[in-house]
């Protein structure tokens, strides 16, 4: 079932949580709402679920206006950040809850409930925990039970609010791969909220980047990472070096060097902000012909991990530039702290300065 969100506005007192948000979630996709805390992503999710009412705008499920529909009738599954398992019920009763509270006419028989619950517990691979109570489970187990409970009512839409936010790093990684596999099996339209860009990039079919109550960009993980629509998105996804720049006839001028802009990133002439990703920077010990380069001094070298991070200071300037090299390239160059080097930006992206909010 597809979800269409049209011109949603929501204020909390003076604070504008959502400002004219429109968004389509195609049927069967896994969509991430990504943004920093306070950007309105959880509010949007709660409005889709019906736990909050928008001040204006509408929500459509598969073309049908559901804005005024009661939460109970929306047939959504909701997974809370802190699990919200019923603490006084066993795991089995937690999962069975949605079936047991149905009116008599539509309530399945006890044996049918038992069969369904065990089926779901097997799906989340925790059948052996059926008789335990939530406080006896680990965080990862609790979140999987919460998911089984949400799926028990056969929702048309699955909504997850920071589902892995309260878990430690290793479990989080495991669970998000597992969620991706589960989604590929079930193909239920899903929306999940996260502030973790890595999580969104890894799990989602489509990412909605949000900032201060509006949508900055919607696209596949590749699109938003490789072609950020706004400086905000560029800053938010991954590390980035920011420069003041001037665009002149298809060239970006940064300080006293100028770099040719790629065809898809042409801008009108004028003041602009230029962004260069740390891995789009090459470092050389000697000057390489006429190719434009910054001169810089190496301040620090962080050589732990697959990539070597260099902190470079442009000569005669305060600005710090971050660069990332592979271990091999780093060994090849044989760099030392304090050494003077030349920096070659491979790829630069500019945004006109007046559009900048970053």
């Amino acid at each position: 079932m597809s979800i269409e969100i049209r011109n949603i506005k929501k204020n909390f007192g003076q604070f504008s949580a959502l400002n004219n948000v429109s968004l389509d979630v195609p049927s069967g996709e896994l969509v991430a709402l990504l943004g920093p805390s306070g950007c309105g992503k959880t509010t949007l999710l709660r409005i889709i679920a019906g736990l909050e009412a928008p001040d204006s705008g509408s929500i459509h499920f598969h073309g049908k206006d559901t804005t005024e529909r009661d939460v109970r009738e929306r047939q959504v599954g909701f997974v809370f950040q802190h699990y919200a398992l019923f603490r006084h019920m066993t795991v089995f009763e937690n999962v069975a809850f949605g079936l047991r509270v149905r009116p008599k006419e539509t309530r399945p028989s006890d044996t049918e409930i038992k069969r369904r619950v065990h089926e779901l517990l097997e799906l989340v691979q925790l059948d052996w925990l059926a008789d335990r109570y939530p406080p006896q489970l680990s965080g990862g187990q609790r979140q999987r039970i919460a998911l089984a409970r949400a799926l028990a009512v056969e929702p048309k839409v699955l909504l997850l609010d920071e589902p892995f936010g309260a878990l430690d790093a290793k479990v989080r990684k495991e669970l998000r791969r597992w969620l991706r596999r589960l989604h590929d099996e079930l193909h239920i339209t899903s929306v999940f909220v996260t502030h973790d860009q890595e999580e969104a990039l890894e799990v989602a079919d489509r990412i909605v980047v949000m900032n201060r109550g509006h949508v900055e960009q919607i696209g596949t993980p590749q699109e938003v990472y490789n072609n950020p629509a706004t400086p905000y998105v560029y800053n938010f996804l991954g590390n980035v070096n920011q420069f003041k720049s001037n665009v002149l006839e298809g060239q970006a001028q940064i300080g006293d060097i100028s770099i040719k802009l790629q065809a898809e990133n042409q801008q009108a002439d004028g003041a602009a902000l230029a962004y260069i990703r740390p891995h789009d920077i090459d470092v050389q010990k000697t000057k390489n012909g006429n190719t434009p380069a910054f001169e810089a001094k190496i301040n620090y070298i962080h050589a732990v991990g697959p990539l070597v991070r260099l902190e470079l200071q442009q000569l005669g300037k305060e600005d710090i530039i971050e660069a990332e090299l592979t271990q091999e390239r780093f060994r090849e160059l044989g760099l030392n702290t304090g050494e003077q080097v030349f920096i070659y930006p491979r790829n630069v992206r500019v945004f006109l300065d007046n559009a900048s909010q970053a």
Partner: protein
Amino acid sequence: MSGISTTQFSKYSAKVAKSRATSEPVWVRWALISTTLLFLSLFLFMPLAAVFTEALRKGFDTYISALADADALSSMKLTVIAALIAVPLNLVFGVAAAWAIAKFEFKGKSILITLIDLPFAVSPVIAGLIYVLIFGLQGWFGQWLSDHDLKVIFAIPGIVLATIFVTFPFVARELIPLMQAQGKDEEEAALVLGASGWQILWRITLPNIKWGLLYGVILTNARAMGEFGAVSVVSGHIRGLTNTMPLHVEILYNEYNYAAAFAVASVLALLALVTLVLKSIVEWHAARSARATEQN
């Protein structure tokens, strides 16, 4: 998990208790302990013992006959009636108020919280006087009530009203912090799963607050049975009709009938002891279930 952590904790605390670095010299410890014990026995144990010795001073038969006296029995009956009406009503009011305050945002919430605390702030005598001013013969509704041949003041309804007023805050005060700490996640989860308001109340909210609720009820009951000031003002002290147990004790005492006064008082004291035992059991259970949920 809880088993492991508690044993670890008790081992740890045993070590700390023995450690010399953190404890005072022996004579300081004993001085403090004996001061406390002396204080407790002077002001708590002795009066309690005095109640029972005075009650039984003239023998067990006198004790029994003092309790079996018609006026004493009717005072006990009235006390039980007042508690039986006041406690369930305040249970419902308290749960409703705590539910509204802890789970919803609305205008005037702080005013409501203040109003709930009002009976604690106001002297019980004033509470009684309020009802005399409203329902008494010279009061606002006095004329109307007497025209319809209804009696509130100097009758059972007045006593019940005063008792409800005085015991109003206990349940709500007990539940508000508990329900606020629990948040509304579970209720929202139940709502999304299709549960109706009643189903959420009975299956989610009440099971989560049951120990706090029971604790509030025990306190309400203790106060309802022991209330003197407010009830004294509205009761009119009609022997065998509008005397509750605390009022009856006072009357007997003023008549120099010490044995009977202490006999009735001993029943109240027993009641207090039973309340304390129940309270400790409930506290123990509440602490245990709180520990279980803390591991979230």
